[in-house]
């Protein structure tokens, strides 16, 4: 082999052949379609059927939306303008948007107040939701409930101030004693807050001070999507701590606490929300003297919060049960007491596991707030079903109104869902 001359080989390629483009069936969109849409005959058939359905839906809805009438005084006028053509009557949205968002009795010259509260809500929620933000922003989160109350309900500035002072007093008592004993700090905090409110009620004559008072809006005048947002935000944020407490109580070794929690959770979960709402609106008014009952909004908030907290308690109990026993023992071996071990070791892990469940309950709860329309509160759906569809001008408009409601709810719920997915990725510390 060694004497073989180099000339015996007729041709040696010294350069690489320029690569040919792949056959057109194996590249680009055609390949993508072959692989993804028409891989097998059955696959291809399903693709065609799906395309037909998409076409059928779009060919019906797109002209309907594109033909939409945005300016008209009534449905009859809309139909005249369309003159038999298919088209939406979005004029109902342009004429009644303020009723859909704020309800029909909220004074229109102070729409800026709930709107401002809504904008501030994002600033208040941001430090809670995104914990990379500076922790000092949490001060604003703590102040937000009082600011929002003052903005939405108005009235004397001293009502939210007194509430704030009470909460602060409770917090300081809690901070002073919690180091020595959690129970003393917790109960002491609650008692001192209640004491401040009670005493404050005597010191501040509610209706006589007018400085700093804004026009007061009774709860009955709240409505529209604003009411859904308020119920949703209030009830979710209140039901989380209550749910955690119930979940821990249910695992407690103390039989009295344990059975109270078990009975509460099982009872509330065994009763439909709508029943609780009827109790709130109908039954409770028998227990108060006529015309002086607790505000309907408060009654509904209490009932929805109880309902949601029972569900959240069970979700968190699932998270607690999923933790290995070693975590509890590790906490004990470090010499932590119950409150410390829960706060530092157990709950951070259990809550992380429970995030999807909690978000699930929250989204469901937010949508359940539309049930208040059956007890004649005018939330978004109540506004549509009652006043707007019963007006002489707009009686008979359905798709446009319910489509708008669906859009608002979808945007909110999809946002919550996206946030929770981000949160799960952010908290994924187990390197799976």
């Amino acid at each position, binding site marked *: 082999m060694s004497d073989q001359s180099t000339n015996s080989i007729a041709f040696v390629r010294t350069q690489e052949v320029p690569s040919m483009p792949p056959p057109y069936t194996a590249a680009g969109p055609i390949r993508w379609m072959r692989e993804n849409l028409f891989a097998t005959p059955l696959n291809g058939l399903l693709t065609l059927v799906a395309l037909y359905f998409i076409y059928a839906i779009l060919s019906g809805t797109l002209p309907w939306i594109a033909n939409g009438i945005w300016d008209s005084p009534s449905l009859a006028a809309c139909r005249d303008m369309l003159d038999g053509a298919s088209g939406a009557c979005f004029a109902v949205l342009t004429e009644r948007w303020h009723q859909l968002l704020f309800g029909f009795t909220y004074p229109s010259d102070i729409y800026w107040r709930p709107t401002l509260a809504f904008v501030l809500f994002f600033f208040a929620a941001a430090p809670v939701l995104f914990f990379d933000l500076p922790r000092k922003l949490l001060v604003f989160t703590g102040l937000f409930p*009082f600011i929002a109350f003052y903005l939405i309900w108005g009235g004397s500035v001293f009502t*939210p101030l007194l509430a704030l002072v009470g909460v602060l007093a409770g917090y300081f008592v809690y901070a002073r004693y919690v180091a020595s004993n959690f129970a003393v700090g917790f109960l002491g905090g609650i008692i001192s807050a209640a004491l401040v409110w009670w005493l404050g009620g005597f010191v501040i004559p509610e209706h006589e001070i007018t400085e700093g008072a804004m026009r007061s809006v009774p709860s009955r005048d709240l409505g529209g999507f604003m009411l859904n947002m308020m119920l949703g935000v209030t009830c979710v944020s209140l039901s989380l701590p209550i749910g955690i407490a119930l979940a821990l109580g249910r695992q407690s070794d103390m039989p009295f606490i344990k059975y109270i929690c078990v009975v509460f959770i099982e009872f509330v979960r065994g009763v439909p929300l709508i029943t609780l709402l009827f109790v709130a609106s109908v039954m409770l008014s028998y227990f108060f*003297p006529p015309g002086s009952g607790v505000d309907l909004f*408060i009654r509904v908030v209490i009932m929805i919060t109880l309902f949601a907290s029972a569900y959240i308690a069970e979700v968190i109990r699932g998270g607690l049960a999923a933790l290995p026993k070693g975590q509890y023992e590790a906490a004990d071996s470090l010499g932590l007491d119950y409150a410390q071990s829960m706060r530092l070791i157990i709950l951070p892990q259990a809550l992380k596991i429970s995030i999807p469940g909690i978000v699930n309950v929250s989204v469901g709860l937010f949508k359940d707030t539309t049930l208040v329309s059956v007890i*004649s509160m005018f939330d978004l759906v109540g506004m549509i079903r009652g006043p707007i569809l*019963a*007006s*002489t001008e707009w009686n*008979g408009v*359905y798709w446009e109104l319910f489509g708008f409601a669906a859009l608002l709810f979808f945007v909110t719920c999809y946002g919550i869902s996206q946030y929770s997915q981000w949160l799960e990725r952010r908290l994924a510390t187990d390197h799976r």
Partner: protein
Amino acid sequence: MKKSVIFGAMTVAGLAAGAAAAGTLEDVKARGKLNCGVTTGLVGFAAPDANGEWEGFDVAVCRAVAAAVLGDGSAVEFVPTTGKTRFTALASGEIDMLARNTTWTFSRDVDLKFTFVGVNYYDGQGFMVPKELGVSSAKDLDGATVCIQTGTTTELNLADFFRANNISYEPVPIETNAEAQQQYLAGACDVYTTDASGLAATRATFEAPGDHALLPEIISKEPLGPLVRHGDDAWGDVVRWTLNALITAEELGVTSANIGEMAANTNNPEVARLLGTEGNLGEMLGLDAGWAKAAIMVGGNYGEVFAKNIGEDTPIGLSRGLNAQWTNGGLIYSPPFR
């Protein structure tokens, strides 16, 4: 935030607990506002407009009573109620009167302990069917699916009618009139049944009203009227005679346009008594002498209220029919003001 409101509400509850025993009339005067229960929305009878102002045939009764008692037809707090919450709202004292197209029946009057003070609209239950169904009588409806509002007398009348005629039906229960309309148009039921006034109002909003027919049978008596709680007769009298004042005003030709002139120079003694220029009817009720005048000024007499809200010139287009004055062959009749 909530705690402060609970606290405030409890304080108010404690303060108000002592003051609740007085009669409704005194309560309303002290409050300066009438709490009037209305429907959450029924075309022509009660619905808020784009500015949130309530208007409608039932709303006019509320405003008339407010004007009679307080002298101001806008001093009304309208409390929207559903078919299920209306009676508890009245019984618990949340509202002073209910004007919510509610049928006067024996059991509501006697067993639920309410007092119906009169009738402001004589209605009856009818049926609406698509013309293409080819039905000309309700007796041909054997096996039909029927859209029906739950919690109303129409539900019971329907069962009675079909049982009496020995035919069967399948009910499709629904909550509100708006929902019923949509279900009916979507073909979820063959027949929609409710009060004939409601059917006419509903049909008027359809894209093609001519495709739907109202069957000739009226299967029930539905006298609709305002009601108050049992046991407060002074307040019941106020509401009853305010309604009667509107009816009598039409009979005597007193309208919101000519009322000033009528009050000043009439030689009809009943008009004078009604408008308070003669006699002391207002004092007997515990009201001003001009109570009826104020009530009529708000929205006009019964005929004007009817024409403005549900009459033939409105989209709802109801004719007077049974609700004409007795002098015109109808049933609307008020006892004399004497």
